[in-house]
């Protein structure tokens, strides 16, 4: 199964793997090298890769992907509660249930395209969210969120050894995943690397080419002899499974699940990550997710006091208004920053960070700007 990647793709994949595994060293200088943050970057990177398989390849903009994260989380926590604290069955169940869920939602939503599709997915996500808060409370524990408790059955765990004292931790046999250690980070990192590998394969497969052709001219696809709906549905389910796996990992690193994960603004967040990084590129979504999670971490921890420290050297007459203005954007105002950055990206750099890098690259290589439309990262090399 390792055959079939071109040399460039192998290089990309190995470089990606190296960067992810070495994150604890690479992120040291910018103060982000702690497991809790890095695993979040990996989880959201995985989520964004999956979202990009749908949006980047087919152009179908889903506003309901957070629902899959929620389903994955709930499935994983139930697995912890009922079966075992081992992560493997939890992730398998998360994938299984999101796949079914995505199949149903996709089957219905994909009967329409364009804005109608977006609104249908949005409607489904809102329905799931509302139901999770109301009638499904026995399954979701409503506002409190689904948590572990001491008297959970955990039938498989109890078969092997009795209940220990205190709440058990999520594990991979002898390795503890939850609780913010490096094991949690490396679990998420491996999932991300695997997800990235599959994503490269999909991008380079005939299937990926068909999806891109659908995005380019769906009507022509029909007259070319393709039944486009199953292609779209497959892409939708694959992308939903990525989201479900991300949800499962969220639950594995921090074993609780709440309905707010399904809110449509959470769907908006993954759209944002994908756009920021670069829609339709391989690594863009991961970069977008990492950047957003990093700055979220920094910005939301900033307060007025920190700003006063930073700008303390300025005269008060300048410092105070400056700090007052900047304080809009930090702390609780982090979402404002996010909104502004997002707008700027959509307006001025629709290709995201990857396009920005490419422009800079072209600048230095003195190539004509005309060929920036081509996306080197997204071009198959069939003849190699």
């Amino acid at each position, binding site marked *: 199964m390792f055959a079939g990647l071109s040399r460039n793709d192998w290089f990309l994949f190995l470089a990606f793997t190296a960067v992810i595994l070495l994150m604890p060293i690479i992120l040291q200088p910018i103060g982000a090298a702690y497991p809790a943050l890095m695993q979040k970057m990996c989880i959201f990177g995985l989520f964004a890769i999956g979202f990009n398989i749908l949006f980047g390849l087919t152009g179908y903009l889903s506003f309901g992907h957070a629902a899959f994260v929620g389903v994955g989380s709930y499935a994983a926590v139930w697995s912890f509660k009922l079966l075992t604290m081992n992560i493997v069955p939890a992730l398998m169940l998360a994938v299984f249930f999101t796949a079914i869920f995505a199949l149903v939602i996709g089957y219905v939503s994909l009967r329409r395209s364009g804005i109608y599709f977006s609104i249908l997915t949005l409607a489904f996500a809102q329905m799931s969210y509302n139901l999770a808060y109301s009638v499904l409370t026995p399954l979701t524990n409503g506002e409190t969120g689904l948590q572990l408790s001491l008297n959970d059955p955990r039938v498989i765990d109890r078969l092997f050894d009795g209940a220990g004292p205190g709440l058990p931790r999520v594990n991979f046999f002898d390795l503890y995943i939850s609780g913010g250690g490096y094991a949690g980070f490396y679990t998420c990192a491996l999932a991300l690397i695997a997800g990235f590998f599959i994503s490269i*394969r999909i991008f380079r497969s005939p299937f990926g080419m*068909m999806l891109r052709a659908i995005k380019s001219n769906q009507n*022509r696809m029909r007259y070319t*002899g393709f039944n486009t709906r199953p292609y779209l549905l497959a892409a939708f389910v694959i992308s939903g499974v990525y989201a479900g796996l991300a949800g499962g990992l969220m639950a594995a690193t921090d074993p609780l699940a709440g309905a707010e994960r399904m809110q449509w603004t959470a769907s908006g967040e993954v759209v944002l990550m994908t756009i920021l990084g670069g829609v339709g590129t391989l690594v863009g979504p991961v970069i977008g997710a990492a950047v957003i999670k990093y700055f979220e971490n920094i910005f939301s921890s900033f307060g007025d006091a920190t700003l006063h420290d930073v700008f303390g050297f300025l005269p008060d007459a300048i410092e105070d208004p400056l700090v007052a203005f900047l304080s809009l954007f930090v702390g609780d105002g982090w979402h404002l920053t996010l909104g502004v950055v997002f707008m700027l990206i959509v307006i001025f750099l629709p290709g995201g960070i990857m396009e920005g890098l490419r422009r800079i690259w072209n600048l230095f290589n003195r190539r004509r700007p005309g060929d920036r439309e081509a996306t080197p990262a997204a*071009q198959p090399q*069939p003849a190699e």
Partner: protein
Amino acid sequence: MPSNAVLHVADVHKSFGGLRALSDIDLQVMEGTTHAIIGPNGAGKSTLLNVCIGRLAPDTGAVVFDGEVITGKQPYEINQMGIVRVFQTPEIFPDLTLLQNVMVPAFAKHDGAFKLNPMQAMAKRTEIIDDAMHCLNDVGLAHQKDAVAASLSRGDKRRLELAMGLVQNPRLLLLDEPTAGMSRHDTNSTIDLLKKFKGRGMTKVIIEHDMHVVFSLADRVTVLAQGRIIADGPPDQVRGNPKVQEAYLGGTH
């Protein structure tokens, strides 16, 4: 009537609102022939073609391909049966490269209407790449195989469109004014190309204005005027038909 008719348009009527676009159309296209449909503007040629590929449903009558009624089938099903249309206005995949543009229909031919192969390596599908390159070569675009299709000139897009049709090696190829907007030189090479495919048993229906193209290629010519067939026969016979000359020159409308 010989029994080897590939396509039989049987007694088709079609009107839009009160306007009769097609009436009493009964037409047989013989296996392996090149059948031209000509007629002045507004004669109903495009409507007829759209009926043949399932884009429009006839009000009455039916279109039978190879013994099977295709009326009411999905466009992709009709394509999979072996009917391929080359569009008049280029309907390509603008964001894909030329090679990919031709590979996509080749996949439809090889893998059918849907195949789930998300983990298959493209490089293993050498037969597809070979077919696509071959067709690109036939239309003279092989040297630009990695260019993005949107960047092509209009004439080149037409040639790409042709390659996308030919790569499926269809049983019936419907060509909608394949040389419109081409230079004389390109027109001649297109004629040569289409002649080359004649030997391979591909049946072709051509809608064309350019009489030079029609009489170079066609084995049989059907003339439409105001939604009706006014003449049908071998090219020489049709050329001498006074009704045809009247429709083209007399201008009763």
